[in-house]
């Protein structure tokens, strides 16, 4: 019996990694095909960012800038965040600008705006309610970042459609970071720290971050020191923001902690379009996959200790 046990653990130790891939794939596919209503708890960094965006509701003299610093490879994590924030802005009449410094990010901006606009059925107009500055060469990242502290229309002369920014209706009452008071950087790199270093330190702009989970741990010190007003970390952050928009912005309700605690939105609800709950559906699969990984780690460790014990016994 003891020998059989050792053979089992030895086999587990030398298990072909492709079996593990299959199990992880199933752990993701099954919850996606058969979604269940897991709860989404709201964390403070997400709540703070939501509240900051929401504080600009219907204000003519306030706007937010969304900087898309990523390509399609990190879309699963960042795209739901971008759609949720755009949706929030469109729901609450918040002026929103978008910009990118990577060529491959340019189509993602259009895709995000069109998804939020078309799926949500918003009657918003480019140049009036929102403005896409479009792709600007990376070499101009710093000049534009610093230039916007003085005059946005001078730093970014034209938008993605080639129109003079200074002539756009959305620019009424907007001059620099005093009005464009919140910059949210979506990235899989440390670009958010560039915004903090220059736009925050020099001009006092509020900076928010929508980042991949890989980058989250690195940015927590900036959150803790208040240099980031809020942060969406990975798919979990996106899922939380999706929920906040569903609970408050889409119902025209002001944020309240009590309502968040009491409200539970089932993701199987057919009234919520799929594009507006992608992250929450993904988090179902994420939770199951994490449980699988934890089980594998425990099994691997048990196998390691059992094998080591039996080897020690053999050696005497």
């Amino acid at each position, binding site marked *: 019996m003891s020998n059989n046990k050792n053979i089992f653990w030895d086999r587990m130790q030398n298990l072909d990694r*492709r079996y593990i*891939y299959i199990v*992880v*794939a199933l752990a*993701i*596919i099954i919850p*996606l*095909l058969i*979604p269940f209503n897991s709860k989404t708890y709201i964390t403070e960094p997400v709540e703070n960012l939501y509240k900051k965006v929401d504080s600009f509701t219907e204000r003519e003299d306030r706007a937010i800038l969304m900087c898309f610093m990523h*390509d399609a*490879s*990190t*879309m*699963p*994590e960042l795209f739901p965040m971008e759609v949720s924030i755009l949706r929030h802005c469109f729901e609450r009449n918040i002026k929103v600008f978008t910009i990118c410094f990577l*060529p*491959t990010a*340019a189509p993602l901006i259009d895709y995000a705006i069109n998804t939020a606009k078309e799926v949500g059925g918003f009657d918003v107009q480019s140049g009036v309610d929102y403005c896409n500055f*479009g*792709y*600007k*060469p990376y*070499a*101009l990242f*710093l000049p534009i970042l610093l230039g916007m502290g003085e005059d946005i229309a001078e730093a970014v*002369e*034209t938008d993605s459609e080639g129109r003079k920014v200074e002539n756009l209706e959305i620019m009424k009452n907007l001059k620099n970071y005093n009005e464009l008071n919140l910059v949210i950087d979506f990235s899989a790199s440390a670009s958010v*720290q560039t915004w*903090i*270093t*220059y736009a*925050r*330190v*020099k001009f006092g702009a509020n900076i928010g971050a929508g980042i*991949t*989970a*890989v980058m*989250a*741990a*690195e940015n927590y*010190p*900036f959150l*803790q*020191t*208040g*240099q980031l007003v809020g942060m969406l*970390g*990975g*798919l*979990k952050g996106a899922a939380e923001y999706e929920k906040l928009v569903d609970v408050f912005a889409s119902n025209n309700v002001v944020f309240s902690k009590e309502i968040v605690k009491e409200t539970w939105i089932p993701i199987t609800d*057919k009234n919520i379009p*799929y594009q507006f709950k*992608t992250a929450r*559906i*993904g988090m179902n*699969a*994420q939770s199951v*996959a*994490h449980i699988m*990984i934890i089980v594998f780690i425990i099994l691997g460790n048990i196998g390691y200790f059992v094998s080591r014990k039996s080897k020690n016994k053999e050696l005497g």
Partner: protein
Amino acid sequence: MFGTISNIVAAFLTLCIFSFLYKDNPFYKFAESLLVGVSMGYAIPLVYENAFIPYVYRPIFLQNKFLIIIPTLMGVLYIFRFSKNLSWLSRYPIVFGMAIVGMFVPMSLNARVLVQMRSTMLPLDNINTILIFIGVVTILMYFFFSKEHKGTYGKISNVGIWYMMVGFGASFGYTVMARISLLIGRIQFLLGECLGLIK
């Protein structure tokens, strides 16, 4: 129609990349090379349209701002990186690029050092500030190599190691989460947008 074709192509290329999980194969290599080629092919006209035309061609040839010729020539020196004998010329534009560092230092010092230090010097009136204080002190002691890490000093610096291990663990946990998220994204695409199985 276009949507269907693009979904089929994207699904095929996704499966080509996933095939690497079984073993390296020509489908994987094809998809990988295609990604590099398409990205470059896409970027070149976009950069030409958004950088060369508005910041070089238009100012020099249409607005007669001839001073722009100097930075343009400076930028052109980068091409000499490919020449064995003249590669030293490419160092000149790099020098100008490095000047940015001068501006970066004071601001970065503020954001990454001074503000961070200030938030570790808070009154020790709750468990979080106490933990942060212990962590900062013990990690700094661990990185002080002018004294041998043994005895009481060694034990204190060991606490610093534990703090760092917790930090690395949190970082790794987030990395696992990120990788799984990317896989979820692709599977959502295959099952949802391609096969219509997720609603």
